[in-house]
Structure formats: C-alpha cells, structure tokens
C-alpha cells in the first residue's frame, strides 16, 4: 500500500497521561459502533406504565431473530435534597437495568425490589448492565412546562445543559450479581467493548423523551405538544464520572492496549494512503467544519478544560490555514503530510482531534478494527516463569525507559496513594503524607513498583529463572506479570507516574470516556467530570437510516 513504511507511533509518546487526556471521540468510539451494529435491530417500547407525574415502570427492547435485550426503567419521586450525583447518593430519579431477553412479570417485580437500590440491591445472571440517573431539574422542568403549554422549549437553555437526565454510574460484567462476561462474550453483536453499557444509555435517552412528553400530556391534555424531534435529537444523556474509571484502565492492560492499538493502526493505515480521494478529503473537511460549531457549545467552568478548549480553537485556526494553503489531493501521501505538520505545529489537544477526524472517511479501515477492541484478558494472566531474569531486564529497559529514570526517593514522586473507600467500595486518591490509609494502598502505583522491580533484578543473577526470582520476591509479582504483558502489548501501560504530585486524575477518565464517545468534557474538579453521550444521535425510530457522522451535527 505504501512505500513510505509509516511506523506505529511510539508508546512512550502516545501513552503519556497528558496525551491520553487529550483524546477525542472518533469513529472507533463505542457509542458510535453500537449504533452501527444495532441499526438493523427492531426497536420497541414494550411497556410504559407511568402515572401522571412520570413515576412507574417502562420497558424498551431491541430484538433481532431470537435475541432480545430489554431495558427495564423504574422512575420514582425523590426529594430535591436527596438528589446527588455523588456516589454517596442512595436514591435517584430513575434506575435502569438491561435484561437479557424479555422480562416476565416476576422478573419485573424482582427487579423493582432491587434495581432502585443500585449497589445495595442484587440482580441476577439474567441482567447485563445496571444504572441510575438524575434529572437535570432545570432542563427537565422547563421542557415539561413548555410542552404542557403547547410550546417547544428554549433551545438556548437546552444547549447549555445538553440533556434531560444525567447518569452517575453504569455497571456491567458481574457487578452486584450481573451476568459475567463469559456468559455472553461469544455473541457477535456485542464483540465491541461496552456495547451493552452503550445500549443501556441509548435506551435511557429515549425514556427521558417519552417521560417528558407523558408528563406534559397529563399536565395539560388539551394543549400539550410533543418534544420536537430535532430538539430531541440534539439532546443526549449526561454522565457524572468520578475516579471509579481511573483504576479500570490500569487494571485491564490488554484491553487498554487493544483500544489504543486500533486507534494507532487506523492512523498508520490512513497515513499510508498514497493517493487520497477527493471525496474522502471533503468528508474530512465537512466533519471539521461542523465539529467546530460544536466546540462552541463545550461549556465549562474548569480553567484546566477551558485552557484545553482555547488551545484547540487556536490550533484549529492554524490548521485551517494550513489545510487551505498546502493541502491538495494532488500531493502524494496527503494524510501523512497532514499528520507530520500537525505533530510539529499543534498541541496534543488539537493533534489528537485531527487524528480522530482523519478516520471519518474510512469505514473500510475502521470497521474491521471494531471487533478487535475487546480482550480475552485471562489468556495473558499467567507469568511465563520459565523465562530468565535477563529477559525481564530487557523488557523493562525497552518498555519503561522513562519510568525507571524516576527518582522515587523524592516525596513528590510518591505524593498520592490510591485506595478503596470502605463506605462505597469506590476508588479514591489521596495525599500519602497528610491522610491516613496509605498502608492499604491499591496496586495502582505501577511506575513506582516497576522501578522497585528493576532495582531488584539488576542485582539478581541474570541466568536465574523468573520462577526462582519470584520465590523470594512475591512483593513485585504483580508488576512482573505486567511487564510480560507489556512485552506483547506495547500500548498496555500508562507511561507516567500515577502517584506523582502532578497527577491529573481526570486525564485517566478522559482517555476512557473518549473511547466511549463522550463529548463536552466538563471537569468539576481534578477528580470528577461531567460529559454528554449521544448528543446528535439518531432517535430510536431513525436508527435504520442514519448518518454515521451524527456526532458533528450542528447544535442550534
């Protein structure tokens, strides 16, 4: 395909947290691939049993051939002082569970007793994902009020919020009794990662529209109108995300590799295209133009994020000039030229934005990658203990170059520690030197432990087997395992110190959320942020005929 021999980007460059924290949604994102996969499925609202205030039970489903997935929704009244996005909340406006198949009345009764309780309830192997959400009271009440008066809501207000409901967690893979992944992993339609979590959020979005229409109708049966579908389409589902996501990307190294590797493979293949088709360049330009309008709706009070957004805007102006003056399909390897120019002239935020955008014209490159984004993690769990210490030393020196140079005797290098809170069983990060609990630190200080491992092995007889080394050094066993994984999966490790004083935890969240396909990152601190999912996405009845670039739809 190419005589340029484009190489994969170096993990030591891509896997820096500052770079990972600059990733944007792309055609590889899970919510976009969910819609592509399920576009041919039959969508149905099977039950809608809500009272005049919108409280009650609803069931939505996707079905195809013999397979059926049902979202069971429970909406209830809560007092305003009970409404919280924090994990300390115990009540939510609505709770949701994705059931495998068609739920019986007995299933719905069982789920009604448990799903609204979330973490303290129990679900079964017949359930796949679990979530809860709170109303954006400001947007929700406004929409209900206007619809009941026969008017459409104020678009400006809705643009600022972007959704009617905000989820605060979406659980899957065996949590609280949910089905283990092994039970369902061979189903072709869910080969892509987090597909059932994406389905749940998508169907919740439909529930929010149906609920406002329903309440407005009851409020004023003669005058009420339904929410305009163009307005509905421009609403997504919000999400508040805290530190729970951060350990995930450390604890699932092969999965992380597969996500990043697919992105890097796509980039490499696109850069290797010798002759760029004019239509493909136009798709790129069109997405870029539309997306810039969307950027103006990314509102946040976070200085950190505003700095990133401003940097993106400034760089996009520079990029426009470059694109206008120097980019023509007559140029061989145009994408490669664009990439090289961008890497040289743009900051991380814009560079990764352009990388995401470059994928838009290329279904043929992206589609085959989607099914490679899951991982059979257990296959890589066993340590190849018959290898030699010298093998491990080479792996560490090749894959952790910058990590083994960190001086961990400095306080700043070990400033933070990660722990699990007893109250909510959720990950947290704290100052090691000011807070108690560091003795119960979680094994997420990978850089520090890798350095410790390196210092041990350089003092060990190099011809010893790993098995012999581990007999006397089981304190570093967890990172020995990681090192052998990174040897096979070079994008599996964050190339930064996740306990250093300069750690910005939301960079870790943003990485994961960008792969989900989230937009409008709105950090509320350095440890949690709000985002929007599915804004601009086709509505349930529109899925069969949709444009995959919906994410760039102009929000007006």
């Amino acid at each position, binding site marked *: 395909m190419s005589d340029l021999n484009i190489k994969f980007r170096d993990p030591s460059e891509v896997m820096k947290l500052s770079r990972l924290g600059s990733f944007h949604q792309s055609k590889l994102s899970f919510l976009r691939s969910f819609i592509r996969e399920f576009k041919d499925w039959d969508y149905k609202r099977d039950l809608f049993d809500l009272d005049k205030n919108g409280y009650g039970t609803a069931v939505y489903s996707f079905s195809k051939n013999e397979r059926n997935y049902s979202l069971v929704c429970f909406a209830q009244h809560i007092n305003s002082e009970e409404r919280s996005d924090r994990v300390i909340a115990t009540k939510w406006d609505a709770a949701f569970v994705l059931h495998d198949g068609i739920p019986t009345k007995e299933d719905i009764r069982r789920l009604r007793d448990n799903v609204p309780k979330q973490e303290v309830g129990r679900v*079964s*192997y017949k359930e796949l994902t679990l979530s809860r959400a709170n109303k954006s009271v400001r947007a929700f009440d406004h929409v209900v009020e206007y619809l009941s008066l026969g008017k459409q809501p104020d678009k400006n207000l809705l643009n600022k919020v972007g959704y009617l409901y905000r989820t605060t967690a979406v659980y899957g*893979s*065996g*949590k*609280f*009794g*949910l*089905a*283990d*992944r*092994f039970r369902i992993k061979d189903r072709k339609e869910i080969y892509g990662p987090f597909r059932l979590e994406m389905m749940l959020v998508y169907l919740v979005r439909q529930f929010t529209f149906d609920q406002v229409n329903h309440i407005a109708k009851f409020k004023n049966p003669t005058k009420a109108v339904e929410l305009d579908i163009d307005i509905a389409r421009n609403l997504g589902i919000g999400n508040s995300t805290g530190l729970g996501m951060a350990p995930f990307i450390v604890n699932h190294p092969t999965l992380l590799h597969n996500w990043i590797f697919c992105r890097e493979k796509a980039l490499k293949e696109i850069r290797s295209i010798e002759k760029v088709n004019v239509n493909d360049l136009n798709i790129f330009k069109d997405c870029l133009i539309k997306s810039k309008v969307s950027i103006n709706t990314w509102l946040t009070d976070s200085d950190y994020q505003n700095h990133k957004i401003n940097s993106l805007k400034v760089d996009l102006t520079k990029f426009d000039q470059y694109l206008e003056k120097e980019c023509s399909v007559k140029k061989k390897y145009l994408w490669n030229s664009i990439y090289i120019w961008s890497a040289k002239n743009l900051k991380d935020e814009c560079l990764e934005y352009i990388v995401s955008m470059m994928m838009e014209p290329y279904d043929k490159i992206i589609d085959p990658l989607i099914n490679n984004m899951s991982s059979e993690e*257990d296959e890589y*769990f*066993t*340590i190849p*203990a*018959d290898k030699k210490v010298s093998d491990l030393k080479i792996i560490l020196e090749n894959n952790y170059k910058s990590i083994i140079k960190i001086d961990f005797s400095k306080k700043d290098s070990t400033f933070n520690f990660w722990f*699990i809170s007893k109250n909510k069983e959720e990950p947290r990060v704290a100052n090691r030197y000011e807070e108690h609990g560091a003795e119960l630190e979680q*094994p997420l200080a990978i850089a520090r432990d890798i350095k410790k491992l390196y210092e041990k092995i350089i003092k060990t007889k190099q011809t010893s*087997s*790993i*098995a012999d080394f*581990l*007999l006397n050094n*089981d*304190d*570093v*066993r*967890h*990172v*020995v*395992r990681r090192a052998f994984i990174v040897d096979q999966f070079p994008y599996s490790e964050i190339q930064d110190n996740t306990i250093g004083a300069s750690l910005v935890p939301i960079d870790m969240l943003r990485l994961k959320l960008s792969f989900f396909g989230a937009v409008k990152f709105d950090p509320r601190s350095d440890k949690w942020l709000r985002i929007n999912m599915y804004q601009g996405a086709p509505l349930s009845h529109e899925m069969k005929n949709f444009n995959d670039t919906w994410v760039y739809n102009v929000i007006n």
Partner: protein
Amino acid sequence: MQSLSEIDTTSKRASKAAGFSWGIAEEIGKAIRNLELFGLPGIINLNLYLKKIKKKHPEKLKKIEKENKNKELCPIYCGVAFLDQCKHLETLRTIKFYNINYPMLILPFVSKASEILGKKILIQYNKSSFLVNFNKSILSKNIETQIVTLANEISIVFLENKNSFSDQEWKEIYKLSEETFVEESESLKTKGAGAGLTDND
C-alpha cells in the same frame, strides 16, 4: 448468587488483607474463581484458611522438590510455586507435599499447570482423588467432605498423554466411521479429485 467476577475480586482483596502480596492475591482471585466455576468449594476453603492465617502468616516455600515436608505447608504458596515451576517439576513425574493445609486450595494452580503443560495431572490426598484436564475440567472421586483442614500427604502425578481406549476399540469405531465413505469407481478416481491426468507439465 454471586458472579464469578465478584468471587474473583473479593477473594483477591480478602487474600491481600490476610497478608499475601498483591501479585499472589491476584493469583488467588483467579484460582478461587476457577474452583467455583468447576463446582468445587473454593470460597468455603479460602475463608477458613484466611481466618487461620490472619494472626500468623504461613512460611513461604524456599524451593519445590520431589518431596516437600514442613510442619505445615501453605496451599497457596505451594500452588503458586508449583505453577511457576511446572515445566521443571514435570520431569520429576511425581511431587509430594506433606502436612499441607486446606489442600483443596492447591487444585486450581495444578489445574492451570495442566493447561500449560498440555498434560493431565492426578492429585490424591486422604481418600480423594482429582484428575485435572488442561484446566478445562476437574474430575473428582471420593470427596467425603467439602473441607479438609490438613492433608498429611498429597501426591501430584503428571500423567503421560495416552489413549483411554485399546487399539481394538479404536479399530472397531474407525471401521464403523468408514461406512460414511464412498467406494471409488475408476471414473470417480479420475474425476472426483479434480486433478488432471498428468502432472508432467
């Protein structure tokens, strides 16, 4: 019921709390998950064993030999070391451990070793025996109780890959399978495989 994911995570955390390193605790999580997957009493045995060692952590093994004796041996340390060294230990054919606590807990590590080596392994203690099949299943015989707190002697035998049937039995079943074949006529011989009449081209 608890999912296997919950069993894995909780076993891992409990084992760390009981004094094992994170790396060993990760192994325990997967091991208990596998025992439960195979229908064997993993959580029951781990729970009792972790209670037993909470006050005094067991000694680590220095090395695994053909015969391993101590006042009390830890099934976890023995199991993990066995797994790590299985390629070397295979040459010894039979390994014995004496005075091993909660011997059920060594099974999943031996089972994983069976997968790595591509060999079935037989484990025997008291009157019970377990045949581990490449970590795909564990066949058990004479399990009198779910909990054995101490096995005076465990023998672990690497089994050579061999048929479980006689040559005669194979011949008989093969002969029957031949009844699905078509006897080739001269015409079928020349046309059936799609080859030309000569390869001298």
